């Protein structure tokens, strides 16, 4: 084995790592195992399960996947489907595609339009959740909402955003909310492309689409994958739609994080809430592994 060259001896290195490691163990590793254990019990905050929780085996998991109720509103399967739609349309298509489009449109251009659009996108990204949720509740309100005032000013009928098309509403919201991150990440990725590549392409007569397809996208691939990993995980776990819809009407916007909250902290059923949490974690892990393997393969072929 080749000898490793390090600045510090191994023991000193570990010593420096120890405080951080202690925090990670105390606040991430131990709670994780605690949640795993709780997911096999009937532990609750109130009622008999609070004083005498006992081991229930796989019951919590089997109930989540009970085929006769799986897809009913308010159940795990239905919640997963809603989450899938939400992630696909608001994160992958909404935030990533819109972010890329904005970054590309303003690439190598300086104008007040660019400044304005980017500033607005960033503002939407940095306002605190509660403020944003309040603003969007007002924006989408059926009777007095700004959006319906705009819609009726154009001669259309009012739309019942939060009751009629609730999933679309939270998708629009989350796209608006998170596009800035993808836009910033892609802007800096584009900035790293050597201008000579594009200038050469221009000389040979490539049009905008060809430049995007053959030069820009291949060069920023790894950034795209990184962006997709991050926003998928964030969107999958986000809780903010709760502040706008409460998961309703009739559970139609109950993404998995809201379902977990309802079971664990509204119904105080920690056992089954933990079981959902465990499955969410496995799904997150699967996403991360898929993306990381994509990333490795692409780096390998480059």
């Amino acid at each position: 084995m080749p000898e490793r060259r390090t600045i510090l001896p191994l023991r000193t290195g570990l010593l420096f790592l120890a405080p951080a490691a202690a925090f990670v163990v105390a606040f991430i590793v131990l709670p994780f195992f605690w949640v795993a254990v709780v997911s096999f019990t009937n532990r609750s905050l109130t009622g008999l399960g609070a004083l005498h929780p006992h081991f229930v085996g796989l019951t919590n998991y089997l109930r989540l996947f009970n085929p006769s109720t799986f897809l009913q509103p308010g159940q795990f399967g239905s919640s997963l489907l809603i989450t899938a739609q939400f992630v696909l349309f608001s994160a992958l298509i909404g935030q990533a595609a819109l972010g890329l489009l904005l970054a590309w449109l303003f690439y190598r251009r300086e104008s007040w339009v660019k400044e304005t659009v980017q500033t607005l996108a960033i503002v939407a990204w940095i306002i605190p959740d509660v403020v944003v949720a309040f603003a969007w509740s007002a924006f989408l309100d059926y009777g007095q909402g700004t959006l319906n005032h705009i819609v009726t000013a154009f001669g259309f009928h009012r739309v019942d955003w939060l009751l009629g098309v609730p999933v679309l509403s939270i998708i629009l919201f989350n796209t608006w909310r998170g596009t800035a991150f993808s836009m910033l990440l892609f802007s800096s990725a584009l900035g790293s492309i050597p201008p000579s590549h594009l200038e050469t392409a221009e000389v040979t007569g490539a049009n905008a689409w060809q430049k995007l397809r053959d030069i820009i996208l291949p060069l920023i691939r790894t950034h795209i994958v990184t962006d997709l990993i991050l926003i998928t995980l964030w969107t999958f776990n986000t809780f903010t739609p709760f502040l706008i819809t409460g998961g309703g009407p009739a559970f139609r916007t109950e993404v998995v994080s809201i379902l977990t909250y309802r079971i664990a902290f509204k119904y105080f059923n920690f056992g089954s809430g933990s079981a959902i949490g465990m499955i969410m974690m496995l799904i997150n892990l699967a996403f991360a592994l898929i993306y990381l393997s994509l990333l490795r393969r692409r780096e390998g072929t480059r």
Partner: protein
Amino acid sequence: MSVHPRKILLALGALVAFAVPALAQTTLTITCRCVAGGVNDAEVQWLQNYVIPNFEKAMADKGTPVKVALTQFGGTDEALKQQYALDLSVHKGYDVMAFDGFWIPEFASGGLLKPLETVAGSAVAGWDGWSHISTGIQDIMAYDGHRYGIANGTDVRMIFYRKDILQKAGVPNADAWQPTSWQDILDTAQMVKKAMPDSYPLQIDAGTNMGEATTLQGYYMLILGTGEQPFMNGKWVVKSQGILDTLNFYKKIYVDTKVGDQRVQLVKDGRNQSFANFRDGVTSMLVESDWFYRSVTKPGSEFAVANRDQVMGWAKMPAEKPGMGVRGQSFVTASGGTGWVLNPNTAHPAEAWDLLAFMNGKAARDDFETYQPTISARDDVPVPNNPFLTNTAKTLLPLTVSRPNNDAYAKVSEQIQLMTENVVSGQMSPQQAMDAYAAAVTQIVGADNTVDLLKTASN
């Protein structure tokens, strides 16, 4: 300039001398879902103007001075309950807490609350107030033979209606309207809807967002009219004709005829919107407890009904058909009650009990009646000249039913709310919603504790 160390010591000594009495003074904390100028304003006024100053004075006179700090909680009942459960689970929380009676079984069986005697010792049993509170009312704040708090009083439920609107719609006898069946209610609602197509005449609470109001003001008031209760002879009824009838009635109101505002049942702030609808005349019949009269529509409050004494009336809630209600009654109502409990984790159990006892003494409860006349728990506290409360209490208390004092009740109640939401949103038929309810309740209480009345009837 230099400071001599001795001066510093002297200064420190003086500080300590001042600080010690300040530290020695006990501070008791108390909270309720009450906000000055907002929800349950009367509680705040009463606590701040009467209870706190008089209690502090009484304790100072006894030589055991205390301070009382009130925290006003402005969220929903459900949010307050959530806060309590989380506080108590980590052995924290307010010393004295306003509590809805039906939360007691769940908290007590979970070990979050302890019997009053356990918390505050023998002073509890010696309190002279118990002899003025009937055991029935004491039981509102009791579980499994132990008292966990003291009830303020009880309430009754009825239909509030707008005489002016019924009159406008041509409903006969609008000044003394009294339906005798569900069909009567529906017919009246349809008359109003015909006269005012944009209105939603009828409000019977449904859905999860309204929380316990859905269960008690909505579902209970209907299911009792079918002769059933959710918990009968020691078992939870998971399937029955009564449940189906109730859900079908909900469907008629919110899906088929639209005499009720479906949106209001589904949106987050629906309950307040339903109050606003009643204030504005959009809704002309609304099922609520006497709290709606005492507090919600009180002159000067947010949902005050203009000219209330002339335009607002009340009617008994009829059974599905005459004589079909619980115990063979033709009219039904349900009661709950609220009160105050002691936190088992309090650092000052004796003083906290003193405060609780003081708040429920005759003088304090008499004073509360001046802020808000209510059906008091104490038999020596009469309702001051208030015909509405005197009449409703006299008419409805003999008919009333309470919720089961069972630790699974709160969880079943959530399933009831969910079942009504599934129906009024139109996403399930009554049969499907009942099947989902049966499955969920069986999971919560175990198959041995449930009964299917449809099956027993056909056998």
